[in-house]
Every structure is written in C-alpha cells, then in structure tokens.
C-alpha cells in the first residue's frame, strides 16, 4: 500500500503547522520524516491517520482518501502516536489483548508478526504498562500497533526518549517488519536514524526541504567538511566563528564540523589561525558529511 500527499497545508488558528507538503511513499518502503521538534511531523501523521483534516490538499493511503474513506483507512493502518498512549493501569498482556480484540483479531492469530518484539517484553507480561522502562514501553506500543497486521505502519517519533541500545534494536525490528511487506512511515528528530531509511524527507518549519535517499542527500552536500578538534571546545567554536573565511560551524560530539567559504582551503592556514588564538592540541581532517550536515546546510 502506498501513501501519497499532495499540497497538504494545515494551520492551527494562526499558526501554520505544515505548508504545501507533497510526497509519495512506495509500497513496502521505509520512509523517514526527519526534522526537529515543531517541524510539523505529528501534524502530517495525524492528517494521514484521519485524525485531522487538512485545510488544503489531498492525501490518500492505498488509494483511499483520508477524509472520505476514513473508515477503510482506520481498519488497515497501525498507528503509534508520539506520546506513550497505552493504558498504564493495564498489564502488558491486557493491553495487547485489548488492541487485538478491538481490531477483531487475537494475539495467537498474528503472533508471528510481533513475535520478535514481543518475546523481549513477554517476561514482564503481568507488569502494568505504566511501570515499564522507556524502551519496553515502545516495544509494547509497537506490538499493539502491529497486532492487527496493518498494511501501513505510522510511527511518530518511536525512539524519542529511548536509550541508544533500545533505539538500535527498534530500528532492526523496523527493518524486519519492512521485509514482511509493511509500508512504514516513521518520524524522528535523530539525524543518525535517517540513514536507516530507504528514503527520507527533511522537514523544517512545516515545509519540506528535500526528499531523497539518505545517500543521495549526503552526496549532494556541496562543501568539504573538516573535523576540527582542540583542547578548549568553547573557545574553538568561538574562534572558528570569527575566522574570516568561515562558512559554517557546528559542534558535533567532541569535534566541530567546519566548512570554508573558499574552494582552495589549506588546513595549515586554519591551523596557524587557531594556534594564534591560543588553542592547543589542534587536529584538522576531512570528514564525510552526514545527514545532519546536509540538514543544517539545507536549513540555512
């Protein structure tokens, strides 16, 4: 089943949440909406899951219109909202049974689909959902969203607030689900997760900046990136920002990603400039751009 949006706009009172959004997700694709908080990701999800009506534009899921045919869509999609939205006072098993029942199925019937995920939380099946850890909550929420064998899965920031190990596991699960033919639309504010999608849409301020495969987006990055390190991070950033040929400076872990305005950049020039600024232990080397660099560049 495919997802298609054309020229979707939506405002809340005077605030424009999303503007003129168009993209298509192919059947079986793992498509990522990448953008910071407040970019309009949740609004797009709610429009696609028939919870909101767009002010303008049209959206379809497997050919069903999200406004007219909302009943058909509600039967066949799985939705995992950004906020943990299961019943905290019900146990793991009760939650799953409840969602299976309201979709007219049973846990046993679709167990193969959720097995990988559910075995990890099964030891805690008699624990109340509210008492689970963040990662386990997400696994339970995913199991609940999957229990009726949806053809399309909507995951709104499924890994926000989840530890790195669980995040990695979560994405591995998504890959496995994709192999079973489920179309997945996932949103995340984490740029490193973008690389795991087939295609991504970079979104900011309610507008789409770019839609492509992660590799293509990275390879289109117009500048060379230099990984700069020194003993004093704060001073390093300040000095780089004051450098006369600076194009962009972004802290990136224990290094700074630096790009230069000039085409003919000499590492030695920068090195001597930084030394003059009183920095020590200076290292400069070229680095491969990543999605975050691309996003920052597009968002400029």
């Amino acid at each position: 089943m495919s997802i298609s949006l054309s020229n979707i706009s939506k405002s809340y009172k005077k605030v424009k949440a999303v503007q003129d959004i168009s993209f298509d997700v192919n059947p079986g694709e793992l498509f990522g909406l990448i953008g910071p908080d407040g970019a309009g990701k949740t609004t797009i999800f709610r429009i696609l899951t028939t919870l909101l009506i767009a002010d303008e534009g049209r959206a379809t899921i497997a050919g069903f219109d999200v406004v007219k045919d909302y009943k058909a869509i509600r039967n066949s999609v799985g939705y995992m909202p950004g906020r943990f939205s299961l019943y905290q006072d019900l146990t793991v098993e009760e939650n799953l049974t409840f969602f299976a029942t309201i979709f007219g199925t049973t846990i046993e019937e679709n167990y193969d689909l959720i097995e990988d995920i559910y075995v990890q939380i099964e030891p805690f099946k008699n624990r109340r959902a509210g008492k689970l850890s963040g990662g386990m909550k997400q696994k339970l929420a995913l199991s609940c969203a999957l229990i009726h064998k949806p053809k399309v899965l909507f995951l709104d920031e499924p890994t926000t607030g989840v530890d790195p190990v669980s995040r990695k596991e979560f994405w591995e699960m998504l890959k496995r689900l994709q192999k079973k033919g489920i179309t997945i639309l996932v949103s995340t504010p984490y740029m490193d997760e973008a690389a795991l999608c087939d295609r991504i849409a970079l979104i900011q301020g309610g507008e789409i900046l770019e839609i492509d495969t992660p590799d293509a987006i990275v390879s289109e990055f117009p500048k060379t990136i230099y990984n700069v390190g020194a003993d004093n991070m704060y001073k390093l950033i300040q000095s780089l920002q004051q450098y006369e040929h600076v194009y962009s400076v972004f802290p990136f872990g224990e290094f700074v990603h630096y790009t230069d305005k000039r085409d003919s950049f000499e590492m030695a020039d920068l090195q001597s400039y930084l030394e003059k600024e009183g920095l020590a232990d200076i290292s400069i080397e070229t680095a491969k751009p990543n999605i975050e660099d691309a996003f920052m560049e597009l968002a400029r």
Partner: protein
Amino acid sequence: MKRFIGFIKKEFYHIFRDRRSLFILFGMPIAQILLFGFAITNEINNVDIAILDHSKDASTEEIINKISASKYFTIKQMIANEAEIEPAFKKGKIKAVLNFEKDFSKNIIKERKATIQIITDATDPNTANSITNYVNSILQNYQQSENKSIQIDYQIIPQTRMVYNTELKSVFMFVPGVMTIILMLVSAMMTSISITREKELGTMEILLVSPLKPFQVIIGKVVPYIFLSVINAIVIVVLSIFIFKMPVQGSLLLLGLESVLFIITSLALGILISTIAETQQAAMMISLMGLMLPVILLSGFIFPISSMPVPLQIISNIIPAKWFIIIIKGIMLKGVGMAFIWKETLILIGMTLFFIGLSVKKYKIRLE
C-alpha cells in the same frame, strides 16, 4: 460484539484498579445517607428552654408541666426577671424563653385572655420556627382540655393530620434527595472523567484510529457505570429501609426501573460533558458546578420548589433531578404506581433522548 465486550472488560479493569475512586464510589453513598439520616435533620428534640414565670399560679404550672413532659423540650433554667433573658440566650445553650405574664390565671378567668411571650433564638430560623409551632400546639392542647368544662357558643378546632410521612421524619425526605445526588454524581461525573481521561492520556487517538465505532466507545464507557450505579441505588434503598425504617410503599420493581432510567439520563449528561471538556479536571468541575449545585438547590431536595421565585421555578423544570425526586417520593412515600408518574417518566425519557442525541452529534470522530 466481541470488540465491544473487550472494550467493556477494559473499562472494568480501569475501575477496579483505581482503588481510590472505587472507595469514593461506594463509600460516598453510605456516608451521605448516614450523614443526612442522623446528623442533618429538621426535627427538634430535647431543645433547651428557659421559663420566666411572673404569675406562678395553677395555669402556668400546668402549662410548664405539659411542656417539660413533651420530648421536644427540656427546661434548663427558671428566670426571675426580663433582664436575665438576654444573658441566658448569650450563653448559647437556651434556644427559647417562655415568658408568662403577671396574673395569668386571673386574666384567663376575668378577661378570657392571657398572654405568653415566646422568645426564640432565630440564628437558626428553621429551629426557631419549629419551636414556635411545637409550643403553640402544646398551648392549644391545653386550651382545649380547659375549655371542655366551660360552655362556649362555638369553637373552631383545627385537626391537622400529617400524611405520607406521619412522623415528620426528615430522613424520609432526604433519602430520595441523596439517592438522586449520588446517582447523578456517580453516573455523570465518573463517565465524563473516564472519557476525558482517554483524551488526556492520548489513548483516544488510538481508539479513533481503530475500527471501533463512536457509539461502541460511548456505550462501552457507559455500561460499567450503569452496573455500578444500580448497585449504589440498591445500597441506598437497603440502608434506608433497614437503618431508618423507611417504608417503601410502592413497587420496588417500578422504583428500580425508574432509577435505571435516571441513571441513563445522568450518563447521557456525563457523555455530553465529556464532549465539551478536554481534561479530567474540567470534566470534574463542570459536573460538580453544573450538576451538583442545581440538583441540591433547584430540584426541590432541600428547598421547596413552590416557595421559589417564579423564574427559578421555571428553571427547575429543566433539571432532570426534579422529576426524579417527584417520582421516587411518589413511589417510596405515597406508594403510587405508573398511573400517577407517567408524565414525569416521559419527561425524563425525553431529556435522556435529547442528551444522547446531542452527544452523538457532538462526539468527535477526529481530534478537532
């Protein structure tokens, strides 16, 4: 249907796991009935009074004896002169002073008229009123027994007889009122809270994006509370029959059916509230302010509707509780059947259908 049962099962989990609400749910009716039954009454019993007797003759003595013999009054103090009246009240124990004029017996015989002044502490007007009435009736009683010996041309003797609540027990008046409040509160507040909780916790979002139909969600929310409210109604009736010896004159079955009708009315109101309120707190405030106050003040539970100003009398008509109180008072105290309360029943049914229709129309199938 299986989906629906699954949903109801989930609702029961919510209810039984929330111990505090469950305690309120069943503790409240019992506490209220006992409070209203034992503590808050209009009856007077053993009221302390003082006597100021200027004549101290045979007649006053007999009247005083009659008064102290009644269970309503206890003579606490004999006062010697007018100056002591005020201090006696100020001490707070004395609720009334009877002041017999000088030469009481003589005046009766000579002028065929004697005066007693009844001074009451009207800080509590209801009690003051009752005291005056009770004293009056004792005096009348005395007069009649005296007059037997004397021939008068004619005499009007009013014979009052209280019907339906012959003992004037206020608990009989409160039980229908309390039952109404409890059913209203449990049904309307609890359902509106439980629906808004889904909105607040975000689970409504998932329920909407599921094949569950709106009416299934609503009915699923309502069914458990019908069940709980019926239990509450039974508890209230059983308590009032066994603890307060309240007679249920009419048919218990009819009482039960009418209660179920009123429960459904309240639930419909609860659903309506939940379509307006976005948070549990808002739902609770609307239920308390919008339902409790009118039920207590305008339903005829505490203040008789007939003595309200006309605009309030008109407003009282739109309060479902008013009609329910008429119905259950009729069944419990007068023992009437459907023939006498069909009009009120129809009004309640009409209101219920109206509320349900309105809430189905207002129920959002989307988030906004």
